Structures are given as C-alpha cells and as structure tokens.
C-alpha cells in the first residue's frame, strides 16, 4: 500500500508524538482525572479485601494491573476525543503521512501516559498493600514498560476503531480486554514475582511472553491502522 521507507517514518512519528503530548499537556484536567481514577480504584481494591495485609500483599500485582487496565480505557478513549471533535484524524490522513507513522506516534503517546500512570501507582500500591520490591527492580521496570506497551498498541487501534461509534465507552473495553488477557497475565506474574521474590526463576519466561506479545501487537496493529481510519 505504501512505499514510505521506515527511515522516512521517524520524523512523522516524532511529529505525531509531539502533537499528542502537547494535547495531553493542554488537557491536563483530563489526564489528572485518569490518574485520580486509577488511584481511587487501587484504594477500592484495598477496601474490598479489608485490613488483611498478607492477602493484600499476595495480590498487589493483580490490583496494580487491573487499576492500570481500567484507567487505560479512559486514557485511550480520551486521546481520540481530540482527534474526532473537528475531524482532525481525517485531516491528518489527507496529508502525505504514512498511517503507520500515525499509529506509532499515537501509540507511543498513549504508552508515555500509561508509563507515567504506572510510575505513580507503583509507590501508591507499596503504601496501600504493604508490599515492596524483594526481587529485581529492573525486571519490574521492564514489566511496566512492556505491559503498558502491550496495552497501548491494541488500545490505540481499538480506540480509533470505536472513536466515532455511539457506544464507544462500552465497545472499547469489550474489544480490548479479551485481547490483552495474555499481556495482563504475564505482567501481573512478573510484578508479583518482583514484589514477593522469585525462588523458581520464572520472571524471565513471563518477560519473554510479554516481549513476544509486544512484538505481535506493535507489528500487526500499524498495518491495520490505515484501514481502520478509512473505515
């Protein structure tokens, strides 16, 4: 479909990324709302389990990633709202911009948002769930990077697909959640192993699984993005 070389994509990707980060900065109210929602859901999980510190610590990784997943839906649909208000996404398609560059720029901006969210939620979960990192910090950081990336890539595709749908707020999680189950399972396991320790040396296997799913999502979604925008 396109003859654009990968090298030529980089300035376009950076242009889209810069624009989306600027929009996030100007729409700080929306971003803060996403952060507040994620923090509140973390808090609610701790209320639901009760003051049992052992139970809380045993499932801290799961609660952290569920909060991130739920908040990611808000972040993803919010990022597309700006694009549809004045049909800006269609306008971008009128420019000689490769749809893959559009995808990578937007998905990276959404990843940055989720990484920022994770950076705040991790210390918050330490405080709420009485846990800390007993394993490797590097593994935890890798899990957060790959886990958020694994949510952002298909999330960007589906958020674009549902951006103009009437029931987009329901459709996006319905489409996204089943697809990201493997990422969620792997990210929760790595995170929990980092919190509680990894006597069986399982972390690398789960991280490999996360990396493979990232490769698949970041490889396939850009190819589908042009069709999705056109549709």
């Amino acid at each position: 479909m396109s003859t654009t070389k990968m090298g030529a994509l980089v300035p376009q990707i950076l242009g889209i990324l810069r624009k989306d980060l600027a929009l996030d900065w100007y729409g700080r109210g929306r971003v803060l709302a996403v952060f507040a929602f994620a923090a509140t859901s973390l808090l609610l999980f701790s209320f639901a389990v009760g003051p049992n510190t052992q139970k809380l610590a045993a499932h801290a990784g799961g609660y952290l990633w569920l909060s991130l997943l739920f908040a990611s839906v808000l972040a993803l649909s919010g990022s597309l709202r700006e694009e549809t208000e004045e049909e800006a996404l269609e306008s971008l398609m009128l420019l000689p911009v490769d749809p893959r560059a559009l995808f990578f720029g937007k998905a990276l901006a959404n990843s940055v948002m989720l990484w920022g969210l994770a950076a705040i939620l991790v210390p918050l979960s330490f405080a709420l769930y009485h846990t800390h990192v007993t394993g490797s910090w590097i593994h935890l950081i890798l899990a957060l990077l790959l886990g958020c990336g694994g949510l952002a890539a298909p999330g960007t595709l589906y958020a674009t697909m549902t951006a103009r749908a009437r029931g987009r707020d329901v459709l996006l999680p319905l489409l996204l959640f089943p697809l990201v189950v493997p990422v969620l399972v792997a990210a929760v396991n790595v995170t929990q192993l980092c919190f509680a320790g990894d006597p069986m040396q399982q972390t690398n296997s789960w991280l490999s699984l996360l990396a493979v799913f990232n490769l698949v999502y970041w490889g396939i979604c850009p190819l589908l993005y042009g069709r999705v925008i056109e549709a």
Partner: protein
Amino acid sequence: MSEAVATIEQPPEPLPNGQPLVIGSNLGRRYGSRWALAGANLQLRSGRSLLIGGHNGAGKTTLLRILATTLRPTRGELIIDGIDVARDPIAARQRIGMLAHQSGLYPELTAIENLRVVGRLLGIDAVEDRAAAMLKRVGLGGRERDRLREFSAGMRKRLAFAKLLLQDPQLVLLDEPYGQLDPQGFDFVDGLLKSLVAEGRAVVVVTHLVERVAPQLHSGLLLDGGEMRWTGVAAELPAAMGRWMLR
C-alpha cells in the same frame, strides 16, 4: 445505473498544454447495495477549476473524498499527476490539499501550533515564518497565540484555509468553502479562489451556492443520485441544475 449516464464525459479541457493533473475514470463507491457514486469520469488540468453541483446525497462529498484519496473507490481508476492513487496514495497526497466540512484542527492548540503540526509533518522549512504569513493571508494576523477553542466558526474556517495554503497543494479540493463565513468571508473566498487558479493550481469546489461561485470557475459537473447528469461550462451549471430538477 444507466449506462448512458455512466459514460458521460467532461468535455476536453480547453487548455491544450500538458497532461491533465487529475484523471478519474469510472469512479464509483458503493455502501452495501447502494452506489453513493456510480461511474464518474473527469479530467482537470493545472490552472483550471471545476464546480460540482447537486442536492444533498447526490454523491458530491463522496467524489471529493475519493479525489482526496481518503476514500477508496469501489471501482474505477484515479490518476493524480501521473500517480495511480490505488498504488501510492501517500505520494498522491503530496499534491492534494482539502478543505472539509470540519476544520480538521485541534481545539486545544493555538492557531500557530495547529499550523506547526502540519508544517512539521510535511517537513516544511522555516515553518514558523510561513505559518505566520499564511495566517496574515487569511486575515488572522495577530491571532497566532489564540487557541482554536476561542475562535468563532468563521475564524476556524479561515484557519483551515491557512492550513491548506501552508500545504501548497497542486490540487485544491474545497467542500462548502463558504460555510460558516460572514459576507466579508464570502468575499475572502471569492478572492482566494481567483488567486488559487491564477497560481496554476487545479481547484475543485463542491457547494450549494452554485449561483455565486459558477461565474468564477471553468467547468461544471452535476451529480444526482450518485450519477453524473450533466457536464459543461461552470457558468451554465445553475441553469442545468434547474432543468434537471424540473424533469
């Protein structure tokens, strides 16, 4: 679709020099079982203009979106500046600028930031200076730092024109260019149309205000129910529309 209608061709452009910038052959687009556009043929040279008329649902915007390469035709072939759009839409887009119904801009960004986004994506050098010059040209000089959200609908339209001019396209597609503008804005669009054609660009206009714009443009094309019903000199399009509707 009747075959007789489907084969209506635009008369050859009177300017003999060079190949047409746009060659559309049997362009059609189907949604389900309904043809929104059924077999449009058109040619347009640089420095010439085409007015597309027709009622709501006639297929005007569908044809314009196909010409803009944002909508894939179900059938037919579109060549822009020698480029087969089906093969390389991105290369074709380097020649195209379109003003759509919506401004296509970001309400949270300022006027200059909106133009900067486009300039950077197009790799335009000295984008700040050029963007400022375009804002002046559309009557928004001094409003560079104002956010789009603070702009009236007419000012947004002018900013969309500035974005279009910044792209410096060979083929200009205008969908309802007078929409949301005040009488001064109408005069602004009239002047801009003249200068775009004078600069050697090919211009395609879709509007309901055919009486106003027809005398300024070269060729006319009437669409109805997705089919080409008439082609000729733009100035005769209002009369042709009247005749067709009386049938």
